[in-house]
């Protein structure tokens, strides 16, 4: 294995270790434990997701190295700088980046190569947008106005939802402006799964609004901003996924079916009312998302013979099941709390805010932190026999615009 690849693996693993060690330090500082065994217990509990993420990061680096990294390692520093700048270009301008990179191969002399690469990198950031900058500036202005207006308007109608509304519109608007700046148009290559994600996001907002109308002030400011960010992210991934990431339609469709199969049973089982059904619902609620993401990615990888397709299926499963699971879970939690003041797992809820927090953490923290690595692991296993990916750093040989 090359030294550069090892450095890439270390660079990918470092943030994982830093995040989990920081979380451990903050948690014990906030809530000191009573015995050494409790400290060890917390460390072990955090080591499990950390190990999952480390394995996932290793698999991602391995794939990236086969697709791009090995080629990059053959370039000198100016070449890598220019390759990084080209990578930031929108899809329809990528050929121009390839043109600059190809010309760099003809430039002789270290200082001349640096001058050429730096100048081209600057140009890559300034290449004319589709339709020019006015549409982007107009979209940015409208987005800022919408974000500023959304908070007070929604807050007046649903007290407690104002911060969420302002944050959601703000995040979404920023992503829309970014999309307009980078792309000619939004494509919808997989309308069915996209519609399901949109329905999930709409249901999430609707159920949260109903909950807050009944129990105002139960959504914390941090929770409101976090929920807004992840919902905007889900919508953006579903609607404006780059074309290169949507070449295979199997993954998103497979993920949509798997996500529905994951989120519906716990709600139905909870309605049965027996202890066995409740226990089964809880087990499904805990193990369903990791299993769904793993299986979606594994099957997509095995059928599509592509690591990227597999990861894509896992991500689609996550962005589909999280909003749907949250909306159904919160609706069910609200019903349960109104009946006997308990949570989904039977524990007594101190107040309505606990019901909302449980739905938030169960679907928007557990899934990204614990279940998402399973998608990468499933992709790694499913795409074991995949052919090596084609290097993306070279420009195509096809004639364009001639």
């Amino acid at each position, binding site marked *: 294995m090359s030294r550069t690849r090892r450095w890439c693996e270390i660079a990918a693993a470092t943030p994982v270790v830093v995040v989990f060690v920081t979380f451990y330090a903050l948690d014990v500082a906030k809530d000191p434990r009573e015995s050494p065994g409790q400290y060890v217990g917390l460390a072990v509990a955090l080591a499990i997701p950390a190990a999952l993420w480390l394995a996932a990061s290793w698999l991602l680096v391995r794939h990236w190295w086969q697709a791009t990294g090995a080629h990059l390692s053959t370039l000198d520093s100016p070449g890598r700088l220019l390759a990084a700048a080209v990578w930031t270009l929108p899809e329809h*301008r990528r*050929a*121009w980046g*390839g*043109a*600059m*990179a*190809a*010309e760099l*191969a*003809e*430039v002789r002399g270290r200082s001349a190569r640096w*001058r*050429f690469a*730096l*100048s*081209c*990198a*600057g*140009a890559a950031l*300034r*290449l*004319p947008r589709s339709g020019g900058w006015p549409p982007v500036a107009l979209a940015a202005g409208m987005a800022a106005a919408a974000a500023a207006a959304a908070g007070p308007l929604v807050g007046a109608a649903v007290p407690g939802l104002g911060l969420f509304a302002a944050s959601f519109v703000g995040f979404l608007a920023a992503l829309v402006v970014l999309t307009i700046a980078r792309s000619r148009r939004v494509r919808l290559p997989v309308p069915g799964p996209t519609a399901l994600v949109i329905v999930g996001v709409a249901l999430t907002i609707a159920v949260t609004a109903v909950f807050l109308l009944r129990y105002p002030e139960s959504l914390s400011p941090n929770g409101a901003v976090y929920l807004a960010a992840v919902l905007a992210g889900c919508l953006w991934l579903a609607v404006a996924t780059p074309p290169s990431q949507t070449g295979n339609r199997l993954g998103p469709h497979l993920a949509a079916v798997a996500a529905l199969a994951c989120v519906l049973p716990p709600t139905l089982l909870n309605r049965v009312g027996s202890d066995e059904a409740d226990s089964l619902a809880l087990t499904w609620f805990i193990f369903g998302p990791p299993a769904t993401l793993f299986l979606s990615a594994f099957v997509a990888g095995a059928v599509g013979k592509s690591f990227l397709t597999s990861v894509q299926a896992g991500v689609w499963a996550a962005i589909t099941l999280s909003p749907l699971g949250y909306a159904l879970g919160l609706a069910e939690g609200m019903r349960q709390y109104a009946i006997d003041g308990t949570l989904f797992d039977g524990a007594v809820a101190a107040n309505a805010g606990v019901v909302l927090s449980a739905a938030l953490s169960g679907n928007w923290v557990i899934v990204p932190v614990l279940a998402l690595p399973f998608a990468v692991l499933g992709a790694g296993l499913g795409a074991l026999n995949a052919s090596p990916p084609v290097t993306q750093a*070279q*420009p*195509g*040989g*096809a*004639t*364009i*615009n*001639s």
Partner: protein
Amino acid sequence: MAEKPAAWRYGYELCRELDLKPGSLYPILVRLADRGLLETAWETDAPAGRPPRHLYRLTGSGRALATELASGPRPAAALGRSEPRWQGA
């Protein structure tokens, strides 16, 4: 490019001839191509081990515009501007 309209030119070659930095030249080439004034193609006979280079030449309308600009009064002198008229095209 207007002097030898049939010849394909390389980006680095144009930079050196015009004494322009690539960061200035490429955005101009992109705008000209967007407006149909510049024809672009990838080199098809690149030697092994070297990526194919991008080639440029003026289209018919690009040549017509170049001829029109060459025959008219020089805008920089007339308007006291240092930029050629087509730069913002």
